[in-house]
């Protein structure tokens, strides 16, 4: 390979991509969107209950009403004398948003039933609030019904809420407090990011190859530079585009969040109480039931833990091996990208337009999707068989290993995984270059895997 030629190819690839409108757009829009999401979320958090709901209560049990106390979001008003059926129709007349009907006491089951009626669908928060309050009332009634003196005090004393505080031991026996929810969030974000970037920039290499082929410029190029020079120049050029974009994203996001935060006083974000933190995690798209099933009850943990919860979060964040993480992120991103990009280039060389790639792309998208799914399993058991093998097999390792790293991975596994990934890249690049050489000069006919195999054997 002639490095002067490769450098020329890299420069063209980089400059044309960076000057593209779509590059500028994603580079500037993504940080704006991230910043907007952060700002909007913090605004919602700090300004909940912007409008109060008026809740009419028809209490037929006679003992629940006192427990329905007003709060930020809801004002409870007594309409117990009204008839539920007719009152339902007259909510607007009384300027009521919700009607809550508490049934008479069922003396056998020692419980009541509750119905809520409203014009607009109610939020989850409302029903859980009412449910909790009615539970309190019913529990108090039941305690009373035993007729034991001081029973409610006894019950309070008996009630227990033990929380597991997790510590991570290092080799010298030092222990640090940790929070598995944080690990999970960090490892998920990393896994998803690396998956997205490999797909995105691998795809960019492929379309760039297709562009040269469909515009027929390739035959001119191939008479001036060798196929391998063209292929690797392209792959390296796009890698530089990716790194530029990362850098700009990080810088721009920090700048925008800083500036906007300074203007509207985003400090409130830091003062969020744990319950709000739990809500943030829900709003950011994590399904609470999914979290629970993974054994990481983030919101209950947050609610149950009093002050000091934020300290655990901070300590946990501080304990994540950031240096290893960042270095690994770049190593695995670069190697994973190189591996997939070289294969994407080979596939691009076999087709003349983007629409024909779908079938040929399948062997690349399937391992990527599998890796993505293993990430979600890796939380439950970061050192389990699936996570371990997923982080060793080169086609899934860039994504899975990244998700495992926050939990700590033995050095030998890291090194082995990197070596395997690198060797696979070398082998795949060699295969891809062979396919690419023949593929880029094949016109007019839709290529299949059989053709790719034939080209591979041809030279």
């Amino acid at each position, binding site marked *: 390979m*002639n490095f002067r*030629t490769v450098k020329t190819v890299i420069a063209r690839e980089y400059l044309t991509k960076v000057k593209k409108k779509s590059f500028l757009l994603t580079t500037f829009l993504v940080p704006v969107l991230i910043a907007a999401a952060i700002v909007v979320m913090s605004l919602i958090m700090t300004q909940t209950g912007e409008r109060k709901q008026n809740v009419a209560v028809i209490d037929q049990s006679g003992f629940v009403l006192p427990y329905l106390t007003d709060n930020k979001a809801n004002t409870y008003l007594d309409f117990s004398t009204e008839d539920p059926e007719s009152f339902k129709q007259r909510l607007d007349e009384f300027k009521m948003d919700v009607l809550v009907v508490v049934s008479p006491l069922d003396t056998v089951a020692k419980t009541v039933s509750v119905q809520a009626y409203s014009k607009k669908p109610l939020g989850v928060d409302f029903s859980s609030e009412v449910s909790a309050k009615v539970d309190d009332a019913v529990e108090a009634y039941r305690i009373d019904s035993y007729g034991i003196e001081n029973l409610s005090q006894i019950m309070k004393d008996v009630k227990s809420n033990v929380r597991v505080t997790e510590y991570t031991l290092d080799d010298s026996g030092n222990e640090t407090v940790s929070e598995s929810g944080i690990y999970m969030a960090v490892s998920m974000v990393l896994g998803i990011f690396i998956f997205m970037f490999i797909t995105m920039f691998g795809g960019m290499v492929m379309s760039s190859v297709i*562009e040269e082929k469909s515009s*027929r*410029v390739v035959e*001119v190029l191939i*008479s*001036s530079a060798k196929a391998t020079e063209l292929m690797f120049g392209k792959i390296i050029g796009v890698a530089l585009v990716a790194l530029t974009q990362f850098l700009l994203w990080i810088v721009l996001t920090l700048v925008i969040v800083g500036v906007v935060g300074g203007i509207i006083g985003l400090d409130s974000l830091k003062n969020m109480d744990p319950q709000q933190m739990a809500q943030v995690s829900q709003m950011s798209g994590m399904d609470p039931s999914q979290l629970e099933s993974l054994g990481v009850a983030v919101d209950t943990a947050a609610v149950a833990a009093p002050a000091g919860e934020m300290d655990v979060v901070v300590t946990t964040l501080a304990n994540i091996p950031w240096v290893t993480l960042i270095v690994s992120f770049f190593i695995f991103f670069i190697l994973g990208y190189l591996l997939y990009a070289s294969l994407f280039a080979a596939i691009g060389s076999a087709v003349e337009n983007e629409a024909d790639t779908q079938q040929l792309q399948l062997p690349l998208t399937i391992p990527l999707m599998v890796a993505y799914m293993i990430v979600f399993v890796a939380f439950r058991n970061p050192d389990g068989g699936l996570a371990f093998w997923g982080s060793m097999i080169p086609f899934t390792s860039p994504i899975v290993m990244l998700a495992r790293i926050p939990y700590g991975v033995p050095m030998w596994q890291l090194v082995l995984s990197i070596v395997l990934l690198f060797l696979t890249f070398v082998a795949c690049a060699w295969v891809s270059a062979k396919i690419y050489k023949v593929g880029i000069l094949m*016109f007019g006919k839709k290529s299949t895997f059989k053709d790719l195999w*034939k080209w591979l054997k041809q030279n």
Partner: protein
Amino acid sequence: MGIIECKEICKNFGEKVALDHVSVEVPKGQIFGLLGPNGAGKTTLIRIINRITIPNGGEVLFDGRPITQRDVEKIGYLPEERGLYRKMEVGDQAMYLAQLKGMSAAEARAALKEWFVRFGIQDWWKKKVEELSKGMAQKVQFITTVVHKPSLMILDEPFSGFDPVNAELIRKEILRLKDEGATIILSTHNMESVEELCDSIALINKSRLVITGGVDEIRRQHGNNNIELVYTGDRAVESQADCFTVLSDVDNAGRHTAVLGLASGVTANAALSALLGEGLAINSFKELLPRMNDIFIKLVTEEA
């Protein structure tokens, strides 16, 4: 010694034989026509000379030595399947292709500016290729082929896509480059331009070399020893046994154009003296060479 010597080149793609022991020598400083019907193997031979394709057998010599990747920088190649990056500016694109051929950025810029001025297309530098018409893009493509002053140019159908005015411009440029000492391999189906431009040719058909040599020599070889005679007279010339037969005679108000087939062993001079004895007013007497087009069709169909 030729600038390019192909010796016993063989190439097959799987079962299919593309070139079968083809030997061609391209003399330096000439325009060399590479002819053949579609699918004969011309493009494969061109790609082998450019080192895009590696032959299964035989070797290519450049200036008498086995060709290397560095020699390819001295070749300018205009492929038949050509194109440019549609979204890229003309100037950037031309700079890129020139630099791939080993020119420095400064050299490339200076040389390109000169060519753009010569073709009167200075305003196109900042235009995107997709804004150009097909003919305009072809001009840019021609410039990118020759900008690095290659000592050998391989032009595959260089006139396709040009209007007659621009085709003439390109034709003149080709001749000018030849005068400056470049060698040009011209692959085309246009036999008129072969007669007009080429010094020598090679004809490939069905993976094999059919004929190679100077254009005039080949035309003479394939001539039937016919003479075109234009004369004025009130009667038609008649065949003379042992000397010539009149193959055709067109009388245009007393001015005749006749084709005479000379008998074997009879020279043009002998025929001319015989004609002088006829007492005709001879306007012209010339050897009638077959058109390249006819030779091409004859050789290709004979093979079939």
